[in-house]
């Protein structure tokens, strides 16, 4: 029971951008409230009635913004509920939802904050430190179309990209294009595939790999 409560609170705090002291305050109050409410009711029912951790976190953020909580003063500046921004963090969640996901969700936080954690964006169009959606753009992105430092999807473009069609510095996919490309149809500086097109350096790299394996396993 205690683990379930702590896990639930942890998920809420994960999405709250605030000073650590304020987070402790919120955790204390939520913990006692959940324990109190579950005295005479099933814990799952209590948690379900409270709403999802994401909804609770969003409500806290909006209300703290309305109330000018001291620890947040100067951090949050935007008054609109679906748009939260401070020195370290920005979140925008469109009011239009499709299949339970916001049409656009942007969640990004900078590493300047004392308690940095990546902004996780989930939406039809998702942009964030970590993004997942139909179109995902982020440091780490997963989606039908994924663009990012590390990306995975049907069409993945990024420094490190993996997917059905992948393009990137290092890419792996059925169709792969990149500095180093691995897959079935591949084009790259160094390219490894059933059908490959590679440049001069790539040819050299490929020959080096083949030679290394041959030497390793004693194949002539």
């Amino acid at each position, binding site marked *: 029971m205690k683990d379930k409560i702590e896990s639930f609170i942890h998920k809420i705090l994960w999405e709250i951008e605030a000073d650590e002291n304020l987070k402790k305050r919120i955790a204390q109050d939520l913990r*006692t409230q959940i*324990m*109190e409410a579950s*005295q005479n009711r099933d814990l799952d029912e209590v948690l379900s009635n409270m709403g999802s951790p994401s*909804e609770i976190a969003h409500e*806290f953020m909006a209300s703290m913004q309305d109330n000018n*909580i*001291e620890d947040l003063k100067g951090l949050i500046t935007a008054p609109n509920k679906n748009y939260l921004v401070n020195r370290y963090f920005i979140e925008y969640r469109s009011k239009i939802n499709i299949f339970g996901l916001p049409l656009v969700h942007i969640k990004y936080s900078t590493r300047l904050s004392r308690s940095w954690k990546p902004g996780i964006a989930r939406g039809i169009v998702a942009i964030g430190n970590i993004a997942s959606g139909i179109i995902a753009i982020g440091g780490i992105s997963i989606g039908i179309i994924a663009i990012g430092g590390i990306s995975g999807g049907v069409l993945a473009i990024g420094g490190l990209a993996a997917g059905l069609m992948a393009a990137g510095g290092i890419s792996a996919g059925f169709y792969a294009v990149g500095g180093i490309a691995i897959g079935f149809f591949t084009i790259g500086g160094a390219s490894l595939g059933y059908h490959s097109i590679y440049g001069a350096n790539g040819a050299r790299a490929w020959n080096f790999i083949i030679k290394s394996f041959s030497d390793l396993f004693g194949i002539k």
Partner: protein
Amino acid sequence: MGETSIQLKKGVIEILILKLLSREKMYGYQLLQELDIKTGGIFKMKEGTLYPVLYRLEDNAFISSLWEEGDKNMEKRPVPRKYYKITPDGIIELEKLVKSLRDMIRGINLILEEEI
């Protein structure tokens, strides 16, 4: 609930909390229930709305908080509770707010009930 209604409620929630706490100390969950029941569901609130109001009142020294252990004889699983209670400054603030609200309501009524 419409946005207008939400904004109107936000204006008076502080008064209601201070008034309830002027009668007795209460913990968060108790306040949520009292507000819901005593207002016939009009002020049914979520924790995400209530606690930030309590934090602001506490930061302004209108209320203070204290921890108390649950009663082992009365409860199945005694839980420690964080009680909120009104301070002398809070009582003065409550009086000011109630007076302002009454003046405002009187002014509003003068327009709303005006015979043309």
